[in-house]
């Protein structure tokens, strides 16, 4: 143990914290959060801007105005779905990196329904699109889950690779057979009819998918804690070998959790299409699948942490544009902050000392 480490271990403050583990835990996280903020301050200073102004702009344009808050909540919805698309398979030890592709497939199947059954009324068409989006995303992830359960291919590689397949498949369709002849230069489908568009709450831009997303998070937390299947999922997460001995059908859960995760990402794709964009094009998702992945790991796949984390990352994403417009900072600067946050959370969580042996 180095002298520095010794000083950290043997000091009165540490002993006091030792008797109050919860306070210590909170203090530790606070200290790390401070590190993240400081790193950001330094970054802004390097650009020769005032950090105080930057923070004020973020506050003024996201949380303190109705429009800003709406923007944050709208961005938060796909993040919640995509985080759950990672968190649910993670509970049975599966790493789903394929949220991005599953969004695109969900958008693809949903737009197919919207453009095929033009005459259907809203009350029928919208649920059908939702189900189609879930079926598409679920099947897409299910392929990876099935390959894994058979022992043929790691889901990490298959999901990553299938992202490219999904996005390119969408491109192929919108450049080819599904291209809207009236928007000559843009590779995109025709606009979906008004009956295929999700209504917003009152005069806001928020739609019902946000409610569904929050319900999914809360529902999953309850499911894990209280149901028989939740118990079996937690058993697989704790020790898959022992779970199998106990008669749990591990491979069914592997496929099932991948399908459910993919279905949620697919629903995010349907939401983007039906509530915001109205057309399918290769810009359906600006990386929600990847941010959702980051988010789920930040939250330790814990549903209770996913909501606040999603809110925080949505604020960050929203502030990127604001900083670019008002401060002349590159909008990518928020990606740097996201990355710093990720590092800080991983560092704060790292408690296992590397053995000195």
């Amino acid at each position, binding site marked *: 143990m180095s002298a520095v480490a010794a000083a950290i271990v043997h000091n009165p403050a540490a002993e006091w914290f030792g008797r109050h583990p919860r306070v210590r835990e909170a203090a530790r996280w606070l200290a790390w959060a401070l590190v993240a903020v400081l790193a950001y301050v330094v970054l802004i200073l390097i650009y020769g801007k005032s950090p105080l102004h930057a923070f004020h702009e973020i506050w003024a344009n996201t949380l303190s105005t109705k429009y800003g808050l709406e923007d944050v909540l709208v961005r938060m919805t796909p993040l919640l779905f995509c985080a759950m698309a990672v968190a649910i398979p993670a509970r049975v030890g599966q790493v789903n990196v394929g949220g991005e592709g599953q969004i695109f497939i969900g958008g693809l199947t949903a737009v197919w329904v919207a453009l095929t059954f033009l005459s259907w009324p809203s009350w029928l068409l919208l649920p059908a699109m939702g189900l189609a989006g879930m079926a598409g995303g679920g099947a897409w992830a299910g392929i990876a889950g099935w390959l894994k359960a058979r022992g043929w291919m790691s889901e990490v590689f298959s999901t990553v690779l299938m992202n490219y397949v999904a996005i390119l498949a969408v491109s192929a369709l919108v450049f080819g057979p599904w291209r809207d002849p009236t928007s000559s230069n843009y590779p995109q489908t025709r606009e979906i009819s008004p009956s295929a568009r999700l209504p917003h709450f009152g005069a806001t831009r928020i739609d019902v998918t946000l409610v569904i997303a929050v319900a999914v998070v809360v529902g999953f937390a309850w499911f894990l804690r209280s149901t028989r299947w939740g118990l079996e999922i937690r058993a697989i997460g704790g020790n898959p070998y*022992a779970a199998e*001995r106990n008669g749990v059908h591990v491979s069914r859960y592997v496929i099932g959790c991948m399908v459910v995760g993919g279905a949620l990402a697919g629903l995010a794709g349907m939401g983007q299409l039906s509530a915001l964009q109205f057309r399918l094009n290769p810009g359906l998702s600006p990386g929600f699948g990847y941010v959702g992945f980051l988010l789920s790991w930040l939250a330790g796949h814990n549903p209770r942490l996913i909501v606040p984390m999603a809110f925080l990352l949505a604020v960050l994403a929203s502030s990127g544009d604001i900083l670019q417009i008002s401060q002349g900072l590159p909008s990518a600067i928020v990606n740097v902050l996201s990355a710093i946050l990720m590092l800080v959370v991983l560092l704060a969580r790292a408690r296992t000392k590397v053995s*000195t*042996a």
Partner: protein
Amino acid sequence: MSTEAVAERPSSTAERTPTASASLIARGIVKRFGPVVAVDHADFEIGPGVHALLGENGAGKSTLVKAIYGYEQLDEGEIVLDGRHVEVKSPAVARRLGIGLVFQTFTLIPALTVTENVALFLPDLPRVLHHDEIASRIRETAQRYGLAVDTERRVGTLSLPEQQRVEILRVLLSGAKILIFDEPTSTLPAQEVDALFDVFRRLRDDGYPIVLITHKLAEVFALADTVTVMRRGAVVDTVPISSVTEDALVEMMFGEKPPAVQRAAIAEHAATEEPLLELRNATCVGQGRPLVGLGLTLAPGEIVGVAGVSGNGQRELADAVTGLSRIKSGSRILFGEDASTWSVRRIRDAGVGFVPESALGQELIWNMTLEENVALGSPRQFSRLHGFALDWRGVRTDWESEFAKLDLHLPDPKRRAGTLSGGNAQRFALARELAREPRLLVALYPTHGLDVPSTVAVQQLLLQAGARGCAVLLVSQDLAELTALSDRLVVMRDGRIVSELDPRTTNAYEIGRHMTGGDA
């Protein structure tokens, strides 16, 4: 320190007298883990000869030597090496001081060769490796102490006994003057133990002080010069082996004499009833050794022991019965029905229980509470609202009545399984399985690594199950256990059942002959 290691270079082979005649005194060692005092003011002295450190699981033996080795930081106490106070802050320091520890679970790197693994440990490792020179040093030491091993093989391809030899070689070549072995025989098949003891004797004759951590009395009497007994973290006493009896040691270890198990009269009706389990010419190809043409029947109340050198298909036999591996040809008949294609869940639900070698590794989920583990054992039984809720009150009642029936101490149901000691986890897992009132119980090395009281408790539970009419398939390494508990005894070799013996008339020698194929 490294100069001594350099002096051990092969140049001085001819008259190399062992450098070792070190002595180590540990005084007033205290090690706490939170509120738990793992080692409580222990005194321990090491000079030439073999010192046994004896105690049941969790008595603090491993923690004490890990503290001496610098793997754990001392809370109190001092260490004197060759008359000098030393502070062993880390294993690296311990190695530089000449203290070597061979861990219970090995620390070799499977992807590297034997030579490379040893080289990693050498204190005088040059920047450019002289591979052949290191290899010849290994071979020379290996020959001297009877530690034969192929220096060019990858460690991952070696058997456990071979890996252990590499561990010992590595410690010797790193210049250790004091050798500590943490339960060295726990991973060894019976016939390898004698070879290891030979190595220990040669090392002792060369003047190395040796510490042997064990909970097996036979090993103490076979090898030790002095024995130190620990109980609940404290040293009870240190005595020369010549002045102590087995009973006295047992009393020091446990404070009282544990009861021995007795097989009650064997159920005579067993043979006439329809068998609960029948394997007919069953062939299984799973992850381990393939099983070929197995035939086996178990009648109600019958305990059938399975003997064999570890790795000859016993584990796979258990997997074949519990449904973890598939029957490729032939059939598995359970309770009169053809169960060849049944899943693990279906087999469990039909009334088959399983007791593993390590409850925490194979059966319990360490980060779930005990009551959750109970519910997991029979999730359908405790389901309410079609599975959307679980009947925790039912779990609790079931559990309390079963533990009372088995006369076991009742642990807190909200405790996490991972906080149980090995012996208690094993008892809990067995009680959980018995609570399901199985008609067939598959026990795979159920007393492996347990101390004497836990072993006796587990054996008695198995006997009780048999007395209730449950058939028990008992796979064990311990021949005494097999002959004491079984009604019939089968021997496995190369994935086949090669013979069936009568446990009342056979003896260890005969069983060993069948196990090793020495009967030709």
